[in-house]
């Protein structure tokens, strides 16, 4: 009975809000509709509606998948500093971090599903039902760890919210254990995703031991950037209390991550360009173009420039402690990593292809629409979950309040 009340109450919360909130929902719905029509076309006609072809057989979808795995990983890894530095609202940080992780994992799996040629055969990958190629295939590993990660985070966050909702003490031991499992899992999902590419000798661009470390470092730049902005918004609009120092510490940690990321990238570039083997081709295509094919050059350099500006803004204490420049930096680093993972990671791995042929890939409208659909769905889910969480944590939305309301309305009647 209480559960039904919870659902009804939550639905009410979801659909109540300011005009801005409704505008946001409307925007997301329109985006989903627009995207779904594009994706429907792809389902009917096949992946020919994308611009992927035999030479560039993975592209924008897989790039987005990789980026979102990074977000999912970083959101939870933030728990470590929260624990070490003993930021006060650690429970809240865990909850919002894990909500973000849950949404990001769902979105990343969605990107895999739209990328495969026969989504109705997805069950072939499930152990028991299908013939999962475990442990040989990295994709089966990735699917396995992503699913586990999703379940763990969902369990933790729902248990925490559930306990608060019922006014009970949450199971501290179980939550602590699960959180401490989910932290290495966060590292694992991004590492396994890196291994997905890294273990393919056919693609020299990815076949570097630094790929997994670079993935983790870049995730630690982009993931906290979202939370940084989210925390400020929460602080402004709810009773969520986080000190400036905590936010600055997050920013400081991001500087370290950015520096490590920069260092890894420079190390990679040095090795490639100084040794100048035939593998240099892919980096050349990415950074300078080959012949007349310079399609990726604006993307790669904009990513580099945005990243460097963000690094400087976060590095200098004055700009780090100024919330305007801090937020600019957060947006820039997020955009930089998004372009890096979405475009600059996958496409140069395939250009030129294994036989040296250049197929110029740019995302088709169908791909952009499908991605818009998934991102909008993810944002919608995240908005709803955050709204419910806010209500439970800060707005005294609980079993008691529901009961009180019920009795009040009964009395009125």
């Amino acid at each position, binding site marked *: 009975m209480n559960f039904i009340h919870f659902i009804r109450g939550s639905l009410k919360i979801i659909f109540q809000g300011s005009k801005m909130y409704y505008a946001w929902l409307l925007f997301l719905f329109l985006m989903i509709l627009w995207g779904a029509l594009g994706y429907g076309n792809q389902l009917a006609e096949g992946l*020919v509606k994308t611009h992927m*072809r*035999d*030479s560039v057989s993975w592209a924008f979808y897989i790039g987005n998948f990789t980026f979102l795995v990074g977000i999912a990983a970083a959101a939870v890894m933030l728990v470590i500093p929260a624990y070490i530095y003993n930021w006060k609202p650690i429970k809240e940080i865990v909850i919002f971090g894990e909500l973000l992780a849950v949404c990001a994992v769902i979105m990343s799996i969605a990107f895999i599903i739209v990328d495969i040629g026969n989504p109705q055969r997805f069950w072939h990958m499930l152990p028991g039902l299908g013939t999962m190629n475990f442990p040989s295939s990295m994709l089966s590993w990735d699917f396995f760890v992503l699913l586990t990660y999703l379940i763990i985070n969902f369990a933790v966050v729902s248990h925490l919210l559930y306990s608060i909702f019922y006014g009970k003490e949450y199971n501290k031991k179980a939550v602590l254990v699960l959180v401490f499992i989910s932290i290495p899992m966060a590292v694992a999902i991004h590492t396994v995703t890196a291994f997905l590419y890294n273990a393919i000798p056919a693609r020299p661009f990815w076949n570097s031991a630094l790929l997994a470390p670079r993935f983790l470092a870049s995730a630690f730049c982009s993931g906290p950037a979202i939370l940084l902005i989210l925390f400020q918004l929460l602080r402004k609009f709810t009773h969520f209390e986080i000190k400036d120092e905590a936010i600055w510490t997050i920013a400081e940690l991001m500087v370290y991550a950015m520096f490590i990321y920069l260092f890894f990238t420079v190390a990679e570039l040095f090795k490639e360009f100084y040794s100048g083997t035939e593998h240099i081709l892919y980096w050349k295509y990415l950074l300078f173009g080959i012949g007349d094919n310079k399609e990726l050059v604006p993307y790669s350099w904009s990513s580099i420039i945005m990243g460097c500006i963000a690094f400087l803004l976060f590095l200098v204490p004055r700009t780090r402690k100024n919330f305007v420049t801090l937020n600019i930096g957060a947006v820039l680093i997020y955009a930089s990593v998004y372009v890096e993972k979405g475009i600059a990671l996958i496409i140069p791995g395939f250009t030129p292809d294994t036989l040296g042929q250049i*197929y*110029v890939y740019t995302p088709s409208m169908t791909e952009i629409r499908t991605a818009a659909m998934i991102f909008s769905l993810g944002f919608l889910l995240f908005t709803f979950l955050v709204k419910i969480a806010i209500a439970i944590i800060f707005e005294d939305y609980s079993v008691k309040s529901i009961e009180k309301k019920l009795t009040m309305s009964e009395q009125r009647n």
Partner: protein
Amino acid sequence: MTKKTNIPTNRKLHSPDKAEGFQVQRSFPQLVLLLLCATLIFSCHRKESAYNKNVLPNQAIKDTLKSTEYAVEAPPLTEGIFPCSDCHSELEPNPERRTLDWHEEITGIFDHDSENRWCLDCHDLENRDSLRLASGKLLNFKESYKLCGQCHGEKLRDWKVGVHGKRTGEWNGEKEYLLCVHCHNPHAPKFESLTPEPPPVRQEDIQ
């Protein structure tokens, strides 16, 4: 190229208008004259073939046992050209190397070490229906690959094991070989260039 030398006059025998001449003959004395000529030519050639029989050893073409192993139908020769003796039996064999001004279809394209070689390096002087190895051994046209192998020994060896040339049929059973002359014109053996099939559609154009 071969050096130009004076050509013997028996070319006339080859000229096609001679056949027309036969039909034109009407008067009796002319007919008698012609008959006389024919008898004379015939008797001359009888003498010549007797000479061949006595002088040239080993003139019969013998297939070796091994040749059946690679027995493949030889490609057809140019129509009407074989047996060569149809015409050549009426000609005095001339072993002197020279530029011919008939068989233009061959001399026109001949490109097979033409600086050093000519017809009689492969064709037998006396028995025109036969090929001839350097040893003097006569060879059936069906076994021409042995003649080729005389110089191109390595190719012959590769061909015998199926590495040079083409095999069709079964990888583990009966195979059909092609002879050298199926693919290479013996008078101009260099492989002719081909028009390629269309290139693949550019991936940009696959919609």
